[in-house]
C-alpha cells in the first residue's frame, strides 16, 4: 500500500512562502496530477515529496510511514525529470542499473532487472549506447526505465513530456497511462498542460501561488469548478466570463441578466446572496450553440472565425464590448462581421460571486465521479 498523505505541508525560503499549507490525500495506485501555472509551486511540492527539497513545516507520509526526515532513496519513490537527467558518461544499461549498483545488489540480479525493464520499454537494442546517441523519446524511455528498475511504491514525474514534440507527447502520454495500469504503483505527475492533466489523471490537484485551489476528478473540475481560477484553467478554449448581476433568487435557481437585455435562470443554490449583487456568469465555448433557441440567448457580432474542421471557434463581440468565444459546429457557416445569435443551456452555466467562489450547482453532473477503469481484481 502506498498512499501519500500531506498534512499542512509548508515550504519557505527565508521569509518567502512558496507552499502555504497543503493538505492532500493520494490513494494507493491513484494517478494524481499537480497542475497550475508556472511558479505555482507544483514542482517544489513534488520535490518535497521526493525528498529533494526540505519540508519547512507539516507532515508527509508515504504508505503510512512518516518520511519527512528520510532521504529520497529511503522513501520508496522514483522520479522522472523534465530534462531526463540521464548520466551522460554512462551507457543506457549503466544509467538504469545505477541505483541497484549503489544498493549493492548482485551483478546477475542487476542485469536481470535492467533486462526486464528494457524489455517492457523496448530498449533492448539501445542498452550499450550512451544517452547522446538517443532521440528525445528514447531518452525519456530510459529515464522511465531507470525509475522502473527500483520497483518503487510511488512514481514521481516532473513535467516529463515538455521537451518532446507534440506527436511524441501524445504517444508517451498513452504509454505512461498504460504503465500506470500495468504497475501497482501510485503516480504523481506534475504538468502545466491541462490537457495532460485531464487525459491522465484520476485526481487533479490545481495549484496556484502555493495553495491548492481544488482537488477532484477531471470531469468534476470541468463540470463543477470551485472557483473562477479553476474554471478558467481547466478546459480549452478558456471559459467565457460575463460580468452581470443577480435579478432574482428562487429556490433552486438564480436569474441573471445576459448582454442584450435577456436573462437566464441558472440552476444553482442562491442562499446567502441578494438580488442586485454583482456576479460573473461562466459559459464554456463548447456549450454555446448557433441560432439561439436554448434557455438564454446572446446576440453578438463575429470578429474572427477559426475553422478547425471538427469545430469552428468563433470570437465575437457582445454588447458592452466584451469578447466571447464559442466553439460552434465544424460545418457552421458563420463569417466575419456576421451577427449571430448564441444559445446557452442553463444547466451548463456557472455563477461566480465577486470573491470568485462558485455558486453550488443543484445537480451533480452524472460523469463527475466516473472511474477510469472497471475495478481490477488486485
Amino acid at each position, binding site marked *: 500500500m502506498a498512499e501519500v498523505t500531506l498534512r499542512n505541508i509548508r515550504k519557505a525560503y527565508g521569509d518567502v512562502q512558496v507552499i502555504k499549507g497543503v493538505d492532500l490525500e493520494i490513494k494507493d495506485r491513484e494517478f494524481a496530477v499537480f497542475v497550475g501555472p508556472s511558479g505555482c509551486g507544483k514542482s517544489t511540492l513534488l*520535490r518535497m515529496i*521526493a*525528498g*529533494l527539497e526540505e519540508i519547512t513545516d507539516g507532515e508527509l507520509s508515504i504508505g503510512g510511514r512518516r518520511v519527512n526526515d528520510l*532521504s*529520497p*532513496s529511503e522513501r520508496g*519513490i*522514483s*522520479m522522472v*525529470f*523534465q*530534462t*531526463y*537527467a*540521464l*548520466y*551522460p*558518461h554512462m551507457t543506457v544499461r549503466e544509467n538504469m542499473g*545505477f*541505483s541497484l549498483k*549503489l*544498493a549493492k545488489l548482485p551483478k546477475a540480479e542487476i542485469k536481470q532487472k535492467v533486462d526486464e525493464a528494457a524489455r517492457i520499454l523496448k530498449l533492448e537494442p539501445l542498452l550499450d549506447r*550512451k*544517452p*547522446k546517441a538517443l532521440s528525445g523519446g528514447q*531518452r525519456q524511455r530510459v529515464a522511465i526505465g*531507470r525509475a522502473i528498475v*527500483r520497483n518503487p511504491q510511488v512514481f514521481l514525474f516532473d513535467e516529463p513530456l515538455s521537451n518532446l514534440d507534440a506527436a511524441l507527447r501524445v504517444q508517451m502520454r498513452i504509454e505512461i497511462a498504460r504503465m500506470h495500469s500495468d504497475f501497482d504503483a501510485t503516480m504523481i505527475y506534475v504538468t502545466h498542460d491541462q490537457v495532460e492533466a485531464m487525459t491522465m489523471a484520476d485526481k487533479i490537484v490545481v495549484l496556484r501561488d502555493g495553495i491548492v485551489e481544488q482537488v477532484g476528478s477531471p470531469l468534476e473540475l470541468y463540470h463543477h469548478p470551485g472557483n473562477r481560477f479553476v474554471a478558467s484553467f481547466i478546459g480549452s478554449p478558456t471559459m467565457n466570463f460575463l460580468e452581470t448581476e443577480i435579478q432574482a433568487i428562487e429556490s433552486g435557481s438564480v436569474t441573471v441578466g445576459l448582454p442584450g437585455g435577456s436573462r437566464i435562470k441558472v440552476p444553482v443554490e442562491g442562499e446567502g446572496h441578494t438580488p442586485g449583487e454583482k456576479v460573473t456568469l461562466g459559459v464554456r465555448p463548447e456549450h454555446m450553440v448557433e441560432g439561439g433557441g436554448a434557455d438564454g440567448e446572446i446576440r453578438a457580432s463575429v470578429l474572427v472565425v477559426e475553422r478547425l474542421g471538427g469545430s469552428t471557434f468563433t470570437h465575437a463581440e457582445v454588447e458592452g464590448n466584451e469578447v466571447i468565444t464559442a466553439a460552434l459546429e465544424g460545418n457552421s457557416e458563420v463569417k466575419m462581421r456576421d451577427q449571430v445569435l448564441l444559445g446557452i443551456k442553463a444547466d451548463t452555466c456557472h455563477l461566480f460571486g465577486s470573491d470568485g467562489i462558485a455558486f453550488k450547482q443543484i445537480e451533480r453532473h452524472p460523469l463527475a465521479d466516473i472511474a477510469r477503469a472497471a475495478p481490477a481484481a488486485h
Partner: protein
Amino acid sequence: MSRQALDERRLAWLLCAPAVLAMLLVTAYPIGYAVWLSLHRYDLRFPDQQAFVGLANYASVLTSEVWWRSLFNTLLITAGSVAVELLLGFGLALVMHRAVVGRIAVRTASLVPYAIITVVAALGWRFAFDPTTGFVNALLGLDQAWLSERWSAFFVIIATEIWKTTPFVALLLLAGLTLVPVDLIRAARVDGASAWQRLAHITLPLMRPAILVALLFRTLDAFRIFDTVYVQTRGAQDTETLSILAYQTLIARLNLGLGAAVSVLIFVGTILIALVYVRLLGAGVLGRAGRQV
C-alpha cells in the same frame, strides 16, 4: 570551387595575414633562432670561436648532472604545487559554488592572490619566512632559516606557488562545476547516491574537461617556474629549476649555445606535457559531448 568561394578564401587569408605575420615575428623567429643557436658553439666570452657543432650542446646538457638535478627540482615543484592546488582549488570551487550569501564578495576575495604580481608575492613570502624579521618564525616560536636549507626552501617555494595560483584553478573548476546540471545531482540522490558517491560517480566525471584544462595550464606554468625561485633562493640550496638553469647559462655565464640548448629542451618538455594533456582532453571533450542539454 566557384569564383566567389575562391575570392572569399583569398579575403580570409588576407584578413589573417597581419596576425600571422606578427606571430611569425614574435614566436617563430625567436624559436627558430634559439634552435639555430643551440646547434652552434657560441660563447660570448670567446666570441671568435663561433662554430657549428651539431648536437654537441645537447649532448653536454643531457650528460651533465646539473641538468638532471634541475629537472628533478622542477618536477618536484610542479607535482607538489599542482597536486595541492587542484585539491585546494576544488574545495574553494565547491565553497564558491555553494555560497548563498556574498557570492560575489567570496569570489572576488578568493581571486586577490592571483591578481598580485608573482615577484611581489614571492618577496612577500620571502619576508614572511625571513629567519629574523619574518612573522612565521615568531608565530610558530621557531628559529628556522627556511630558505637556507633545501627542503624547507622547497616548502616555501611550493607554498608561494600554491597560494598564488589556487584561485586560478578554483575559478576554472568552478566553471566546470556550474556546468553539471542540477537535475543530474537530484537524480543521483533519488538513486540513493551519498554525497561522496555523487561526487565520485557524477560530478567528477562530468568535470573531467575542466579538471584537465586546469591541470594543463598549471603544469605548463609550473614546469617553467622562474620568478618565485629567482626571488627566493636564486637557485641556491640546490633548488635550481630548468628555467633558472637556462638563465644562468645564458645570462650569467654568457654561453648562448649551451643556454639555447637548455631552452629548446624546456620547450620540448612543455610540448610533450601539452600533447599528453590534449590527448586526454580530446577523449574528455568527446565524452562531454555526450551530455544532452
